[in-house]
């Protein structure tokens, strides 16, 4: 658990000290000084990915539903499938978790994510809907 800022009390005390005309002193009478420190956060390295374009319509399209095994994710997606059947009857909805049970998992590794993505790609979907649940 990340604690609440433990230095805030020090900050308040420092402001009080400033009010009392002790502008450069900390709680222990420590004088302010010039510091030079290294930014420890580092720069970030991310290779950008462009999001895929959306289909103009869902009519006649293949929609794959992917469940990651979290409780109720399948129940949520089952209802979504029913709603698609009502609202977009020409769409083909594929419940991945019913046709390939090896995909019912949070992947746990890049390798496994790639494998599951390969299985989904093989279904030639126009849209994939995943439920994270929790």
């Amino acid at each position, binding site marked *: 658990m990340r604690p609440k800022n433990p230095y805030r009390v020090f900050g308040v005390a420092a402001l009080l000290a400033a009010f009392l005309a002790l502008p450069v002193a900390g709680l222990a009478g420590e*004088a302010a000084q010039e510091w030079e420190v290294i930014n*420890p956060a580092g720069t970030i390295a991310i290779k*950008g990915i462009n999001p*895929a374009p*959306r289909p103009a319509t869902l009519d006649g399209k293949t929609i794959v539903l992917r469940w990651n095994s*979290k409780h109720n994710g399948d129940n*949520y997606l089952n209802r979504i499938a029913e*709603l698609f059947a009502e609202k977009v009857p020409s769409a083909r909805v594929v419940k991945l978790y019913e046709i390939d049970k090896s995909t019912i998992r949070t992947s746990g590794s890049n390798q496994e994510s790639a494998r599951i993505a390969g299985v989904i790609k093989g279904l030639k979907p126009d849209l994939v*809907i995943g439920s994270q649940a929790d």
Partner: protein
Amino acid sequence: MEELGIPTITVTTNAFLSLSRATLTSIGLPDMALVEAAHPMGMVSLEEIRAQADKTFPEVLKLATQWKPARTEIPGVGKPPYPAERVRFKGTYEALNTMFYDRNWSLGLPILPPTPEAVAAMLKGTSRKPEEVVWVVPPRMGQLTVELVAALGYMAGARPEHMPLLLAAVKVLSHPDFDWRGATTTTGCSVPVLVINGPILDELGVGYSTGVLGGRQPVNIALGVFVNLVGDIVGGSIQPDPDKSTHGTRADLAAVVFGENEKANPWKQSYAVEKGFKPTESVVSGFAAYNGNNNTDHSSVKSTELLNTLAIGITGAASGVTSCFTRYDKGYGNDNKVKYVFVFLGPEHADTIYREFPTKKAVQEYFVKKCAAPYWTYAPTLCTPPKELGPYHENTMMPRFTQAEQIHIVVTGGPGKQSLIFPSFPTNNRVVSVVVEK
């Protein structure tokens, strides 16, 4: 999928929206079609979850054809990792600490300020080039250079001679089998655990006897704090986002660092030697764990009596997320969760066990046989018995493990009839061990 050119919609609850966005950024997606559902989705009734689907379906339908990314670039990308930015600040030591905390550059504990002079002194402890990137730390994907290892090590209280140990620890944590991302963003109380073997124990004064996980263990504590500084500052895994740990653990401040009490190990072979390393090599082994539990057994006289009380502790550890019939050589899955465990035996317990079990292998095999629980104690869907078991019922005893190598035994600590049990984090694939390179 987006990288493969296939559009997606991800349904996530409002409690995890920020984690979803952080994850997207870390994999390079500036934005993604996210549908926000009310938390929680799990452990609610079928009627409630169907109502959630009804409520969110219009948004699903809309995003399917109309979604456009809110941003197309990820800010802050492209800056060189070395040299690290120098920051000038005027104020007291207290004010400096406040500044560090406000910028997410500390854990909330006071730090030693990483001045260029202090970092340069730390770098003398290694022959590695300061510009070398040793890890791109998820989920933030911060570039950890050797220079930053020196800076973060210094902030944690490490000394120049600790640099090889810090770098070895980074090599362990960054291994894909560790699954750092999963372990540091989970709702679970995950704990990074490191075990140190070899001559470096006495060379650096690594703690391995009384109070090994307690205070006044400067090397263990500095390394433990360093691990979390790397994870929180460079990796960005701070609570409450994207580190979603429901309770967290005090190991979020100082990771768990054990030295093995090799001199008190009745089996003689250290953990590292058992894994194929030479006794002359210093080795860091590590894994992602759940919070440990303890075995306090003052009563058992026979080896098997003590092993039995340990077995129930092992079996019950991390309850609710464990699978039955797990295997060490099988990947993560609902049927293979928490697939191994570390038993940190106090030397007196080790001696008691050794009397009737002259090899660790025999101990491991005993645990595999004894660590079992009735089917009803496993969470739904997590215990899938093999067909060979035949018919079973709710009281059928289901073993947690099937292979001796799923039980890892380390002798550590001082006098006393105490041991500790740390179950592995589910997506952690195996123990990673590396030699400390000077």
